[in-house]
């Protein structure tokens, strides 16, 4: 048994006086496909930023491939973890391929330009998400679904082991949502561990084997859809009545939770 690709050990984090994560401990195995759910403002994005090293935890330790995040160098970390942000606002008319090429930055030195290997990786990243035909289009002209795929291509060009996605299905129509989830599954099958913050619980229940639900108390629940998407838990997490939640609950009689706090 190898070490989990990602491990939280008593991780706490707060924004000012507001505690978002309270002594969180969990492990994510290689090649897992994990959905991160929870109400708005509960700390999903924060958690992704903690994992990608953009924010340091207030206390506790995050281990990536068994090594504390603090011990990873600034350039090595993005070769293992790729964060696909929610929005990308680009002020100039960069073209798709120029943007995807930025995913190679962690593999390049300051004075050495792009190598043939860099070009190959950019090509295969664009192929993997099927945006080769868009390579010369300015990013600003793309549709929501196309933008999402470009952002994922940047992440793929990083050649990561772990990909974090912040609301990848937001603003997408049903068709594009299904395509996107299928894409994530393909990437997952290629060996990339995936953690995606997703709002749509139906999408989560049908497509993600593991779920982490963040609670506003704060706390968290991790397990399968059957274990996590239960009425009393959803009620606590999203503070709505049980009847209104009806259709989101999976099966009320599961074997129990892996971790509840």
């Amino acid at each position, binding site marked *: 048994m190898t070490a989990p690709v990602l491990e939280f050990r008593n991780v706490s984090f707060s924004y000012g006086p507001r505690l978002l994560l309270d002594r969180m401990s969990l492990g994510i195995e290689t090649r897992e496909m994990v959905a991160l759910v929870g109400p708005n403002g509960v700390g999903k994005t924060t958690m992704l930023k903690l994992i990608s090293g*953009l924010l340091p935890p207030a206390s506790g330790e995050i281990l990536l491939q068994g090594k504390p995040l603090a011990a990873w160098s600034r350039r090595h970390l*993005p070769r293992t973890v790729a964060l696909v*942000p929610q929005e990308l606002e680009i002020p100039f008319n960069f*073209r798709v391929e120029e943007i995807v090429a*930025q995913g190679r930055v962690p593999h390049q030195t300051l004075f050495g330009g792009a190598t043939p290997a860099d070009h190959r990786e950019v090509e295969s990243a664009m192929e993997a998400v099927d945006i080769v035909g868009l390579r010369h*289009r300015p990013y600003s002209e793309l549709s929501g679904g196309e933008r999402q795929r470009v952002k994922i291509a940047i992440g793929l060009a990083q050649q990561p082991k772990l990909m974090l996605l912040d609301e990848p299905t937001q603003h997408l129509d049903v068709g594009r949502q299904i395509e996107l989830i299928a894409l994530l599954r393909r990437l997952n099958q290629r060996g990339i561990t995936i953690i995606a913050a997703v709002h749509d619980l139906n999408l989560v229940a049908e497509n993600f084997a593991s779920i982490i639900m963040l609670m506003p108390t704060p706390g968290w629940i991790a397990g399968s859809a059957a274990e996590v998407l239960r009425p009393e838990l959803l009620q606590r997490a999203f503070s709505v009545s049980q009847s209104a939640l009806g259709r989101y609950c999976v099966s009320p009689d599961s074997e129990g939770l892996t971790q509840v706090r």
Partner: protein
Amino acid sequence: MEAELKAPVKPKATVERTLQPAVSPRTALAATGGQSKLDNRISTRTLNLVLLVALALAIVAATGLGAVRLSISEVLRAFLHPSRAGDAGEIIFQLRLPRVLAAALVGAALSATGVLFQGLFRNPLADPFVLGTSGGAALGGAVGIFLIPSLSFAGFGATAVLAFCGSVLTMILVWYLARAGGRFAMETLLLAGFVIGTMLNAGTVVFEMREEASNSGLRVLAAWLHGQLSIPTWSQLALIAPLVGIAIVLGLPLAGRLNTLALGEEYAAQLGVSVARVRVATVILGSLLTAAAVSLGGLIGFVGLLVPHFLRILIGPNHVRLLLPAALGGATFLILADTFARTAFAPTEIPVGVFTAFLGGPAFLYLLNHRSRESRQ
């Protein structure tokens, strides 16, 4: 910017055909192994070559133009045999050429600074004049001229060092005023730059009014405030030219990081870019270039906005590809502008800064309108 937005599929025939035979984009794609030579953007190498030739022509032509008109062959002969040039040589080497080279250096420096600052602020309107750093450099220089004229630091006059400090300090001030929530709102950035620039210029005017000021100092300040190019000494040029050259070369690796920064500061950090270092390096290089430009020509506005803007239409926004053409194009542009400014209404000379304001102001307003309309959509 419209043209490149709309025509990724069918390259503009006229430009394209001259560069390579008419090939359909798809076959060209296969032939170049996926490299992007096929699109409607001109290759950087071609552009640099064209701009270099244009710069050389501009230098020769501008050196010939003036109260005493010299033919191109006279100018070239003087360049080749300076000792045998006689009266023409006197005019060329004492008056015209230093001024033309000053214009080239100022244009290159301002335009390259524009590229760097636009990348840093992620805003195509960022220009050393608009951001107020030119004003900071001028005030710093004024302090140097009047308060401590005798001070010299490692071969640099106090004026140059203080102009650099003035630019850096202004940049820091504008930075902290305009930054909110990890980003720069365009309105705040422009307002902060404008107000600080105006205040600093007012400070420079105060120095200009001081009665005990020496006459030569007064003349320098008046020229700075109007954006009037001086005729530098050869030793001044020998100091400033390498400085500008080195700053631009050092800007090249930095420009690559500015490309990443275009995706957002946090995202760039996620990609392993040390955003803080990029910031500091950009401010230092930009301030060096601004100080160099201001010490030769004072407050010449909008060059750093106009030149990069037009080049972006030709070759796209990639800062690495943009920097050298911007420097070359800026040099040529300011030589032409200054030659126009000193000959068009002869014997009256208008300051080149006035001329660039007439050209750059409308361009600025166009971009501003364009940008705010975009953000409203």
